[in-house]
C-alpha cells in the first residue's frame, strides 16, 4: 500500500472512527464520574429506546427531528458555510406551518392541509436563513454571528406571535388553538391500524417518511445535479469554482435557503405530527443537535440517518434512564452531543499527525532520490 492510499485510509476511515470512539469513551467517563455504570446505563438506554413498541416509536420520532437538522447543517457545510441558526430556522418554520394551517378553512381536507403546512415550514425556514445569507453574500457580515443573532430574534418574535397574535382566545398559555384534525400528520400507529396491524400509540407520525424523502432528495441534489455540484465545488475550493464559472454569492443564498428550509421541517414533525398546535420552544436543542449529527454523519445523508438514529436513541433512552436511575437525566444526550462536536469537529485532526507519523511516514530520501 503506498503512502497516498494509507493517508486516504487514515483520513477516510480510521480518523472518523477514532473520533467517534473517543466521544463514546469520554461519555463513559462522564457516567463513571456520576457513579453510574456505563454498561448498565447502556442496557437501560437500549431497552428504553428499542425494548418495546412505544419506545421504538419515540426513538424514531426524535430521530426524525435530528435527520432534518442534520441535513440542514450538512447542506450548508457542503457550501463551506456553518449554519448555526438551525434553532431559529426550525422555530420560525413552525410559524410557517402553523400560519398555513390556522389561516386555511378548517373544513378543507388533509390533502390541502398537509402540503400547505409543509410548504409553510419550508418557506419560513428558508426565509429565516435567507437574510443572514444575503448579509453574508452582499454585505460581508459573518454568517455565524448573524445566524446566532437570528436564533435570538426568532425566539423573541415567536414569543411575541404566541402571546399577542396567535394565543388561543381565553387562554393564558402562550400557544395557538388546536389545529383541525384534518391538518394532523397521521400517526404511524393509526396508519398501521388502517392496514390491520395494531401497534402501541406513540408520537411517531408520517413525518419520518418526509425525513427519509428529504435524505434521498439531498443526496440526489448534492451528488446528482449541476446545482449540487456547484455547491460542493464552492465548498471545497471556491477559487476553482469561480474558475469554473460558478458564482459564490448565488451559492451562499441557495445553500442557506435549502438549509433553512430543511431545519424548518422539524416543525412538521413536532407540531403538525404530534403537538397539533403551535407551542413555545418545541425546537429546543434540535438545531444544535444537528451540528453533532452532521459532523458524526460526515455530512452524508446516509451517515446523518445513522447518527440521527443514535441521537434519537439517546434522547428516548435518556428519558428511560432518568426514569429508571436516580441522579441522571436525558441531558446526558446533550453532553454526548457536545463531546461529538468536540471530537468529531473541533478536534477532528487531533490524532492525524500521530497516525500519519506512525502508519504513513514520509520517506524524503526515497521519494526524492536525493543522496544524503
Amino acid at each position, binding site marked *: 500500500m503506498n503512502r497516498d492510499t494509507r493517508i486516504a485510509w487514515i483520513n477516510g476511515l480510521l480518523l472518523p472512527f477514532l473520533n467517534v470512539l473517543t466521544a463514546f469513551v469520554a461519555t463513559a467517563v462522564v457516567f463513571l464520574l456520576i457513579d453510574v455504570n456505563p454498561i448498565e446505563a447502556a442496557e437501560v438506554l437500549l431497552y428504553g429506546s428499542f425494548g418495546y413498541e412505544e419506545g421504538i416509536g419515540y426513538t424514531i420520532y426524535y430521530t426524525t427531528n435530528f435527520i432534518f437538522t442534520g441535513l440542514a447543517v450538512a447542506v450548508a457545510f457542503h457550501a463551506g458555510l456553518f449554519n448555526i441558526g438551525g434553532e431559529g430556522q426550525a422555530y420560525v418554520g413552525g410559524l410557517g406551518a402553523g400560519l398555513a394551517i390556522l389561516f386555511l378553512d378548517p373544513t378543507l381536507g388533509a390533502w390541502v392541509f398537509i402540503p400547505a403546512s409543509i410548504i409553510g415550514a419550508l418557506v419560513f425556514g428558508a426565509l429565516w436563513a435567507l437574510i443572514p445569507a444575503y448579509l453574508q453574500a452582499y454585505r460581508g457580515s459573518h454568517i455565524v454571528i448573524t445566524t446566532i443573532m437570528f436564533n435570538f*430574534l426568532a425566539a423573541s418574535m415567536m414569543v*411575541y406571535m404566541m402571546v399577542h397574535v396567535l394565543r388561543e382566545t381565553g387562554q393564558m398559555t402562550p400557544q395557538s388553538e388546536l389545529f383541525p384534525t384534518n391538518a394532523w400528520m397521521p400517526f404511524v400507529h393509526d396508519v398501521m391500524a388502517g392496514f390491520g396491524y395494531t401497534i402501541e400509540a406513540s408520537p411517531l407520525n408520517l413525518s419520518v417518511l418526509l425525513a427519509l424523502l428529504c435524505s434521498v432528495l439531498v443526496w440526489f441534489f448534492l451528488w446528482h445535479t449541476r446545482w449540487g455540484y456547484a455547491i460542493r465545488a464552492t465548498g471545497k475550493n471556491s477559487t476553482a469554482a469561480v474558475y469554473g464559472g460558478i458564482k459564490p454569492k448565488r451559492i451562499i443564498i441557495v445553500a442557506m435557503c435549502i438549509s433553512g428550509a430543511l431545519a424548518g421541517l422539524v416543525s412538521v414533525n413536532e407540531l403538525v405530527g404530534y403537538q397539533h398546535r403551535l407551542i413555545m420552544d418545541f425546537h429546543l436543542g434540535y438545531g444544535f443537535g444537528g451540528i453533532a449529527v452532521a459532523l458524526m454523519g460526515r455530512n452524508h445523508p446516509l451517515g446523518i440517518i445513522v447518527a440521527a438514529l443514535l441521537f434519537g436513541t439517546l434522547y428516548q433512552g435518556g428519558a428511560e434512564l432518568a426514569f429508571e436511575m436516580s441522579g441522571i437525566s436525558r441531558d446526558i444526550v446533550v453532553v454526548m452531543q457536545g463531546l461529538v*462536536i468536540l471530537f468529531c469537529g473541533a478536534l477532528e485532526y487531533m490524532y492525524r499527525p500521530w497516525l500519519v507519523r506512525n502508519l504513513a511516514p514520509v520517506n524524503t530520501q526515497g521519494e526524492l532520490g536525493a543522496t544524503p
Partner: protein
Amino acid sequence: MNDIFLTVLLTLDATIRVSTPLIFAAMAGLFAERSGVVDIGLEGKMLAGAFAAASVASIVGSPWAGLGIAILVSTSLAMLHGFATITHRGDQIVSGVAINILVAGLTIILGLAWFHQGGLTPALSNESRFLSITLPFVEQLALIPVLGPIYKELISGHNILVYLAFVVVPMVWWVVYRTRFGLRLRAVGENPKAVDTAGLSVIKLRYKALIVGGVLCGIAGAYISTAHNAQFTRDMTAGQGYIALAALIFGKWRPLTVMLACLLFGFLDAVAVRLQGVSIPGIGEIPVQFIEATPYLLTVILLAGFIGRAIPPKAVGTAYVKER
C-alpha cells in the same frame, strides 16, 4: 416627579446589575478575539463558572472559594478551546459550539448527581453569597436632593463584583493600550505573521489571551449564581454569553465602547422588565419582546454595515500556519 426620578434610578440600578456579567464576559471575549481567536464559547464558560461557583459555595460556604473554582473551571475550558483551535488548528466556531453544548449538558448531569435537586444546586445562604455593600455616609447624604438618591440607589448597595466590573474595564483598557502584552495582543490578532517575524510566539500569546478570558468568564459566571442569584439553575446564563459577544461587536472590540454597549444592552433588559404590561401614553404598550430583541437586531444591522462598520481584528477566526 419624584416617582419618575425614582423609577429612572431603579431602572439604572437594575441596568448595572444586569450589565455586570455582560461586562466581564465581553472583556473576556475582547482578549480572545483581539488575539485572533473567535470565542463563541463565552456562554458555556460563564455557565460552567456559574455552576462551579454555586456548587462550591454551597459546600464550603464561602463565595470566594466558589469564585476561585469558577475561575479555574472556566479557564480549563478556555484551555480546551486553545488546545483545539491553537494547537490543533480546529475550527474556532465548532470548538465554541462544542463547549457551549457540553457545558449545558454537564452542569445538569453533574448537578443532579451531586445535589439531587433536579439539576439545581442548593439555595445559598447569605454567608455563601456576595452581598450588597452599603457605602459609607449613605444615610447622611440621602437628604441632598438628586445627588443623595443617586448615591444611595445607584452607586451604593451593590456587591463587590459589580464594583470590580467597573474597575476591570479601565484595567483592560490600560493593559490593551499601555502594556507590552497589550501591544502584542493587538498585533497578533491583526497580523500574526508580523508577530512571528518579530521573534514572538503566536501560540503562546494566544494561549495567554485565552487564559485571561477564562478568568474573566469565571468571574461572570460566579456573579450570576452567587451574587445576582442564590443558586444555580438550568441554563441560567440564558444567552448572556451571546449578548456579550454582540456587545463586543457593537463596541467594536474596544474596552470602553464595549462597556457602553454592555450597559446599553443591560439597560434594554432592565427597561423590558419594567415596561412589562405598562402602557406608555401616546405610544401604547411596547411589546417586551421587541425591546429584548433590540441588542441582536442592532448587532445584525451594525455587522451588515448599515450603521457604521464593525471591523473585527483581521486575523480573527483563522489558525496561524507558517506558510507552505
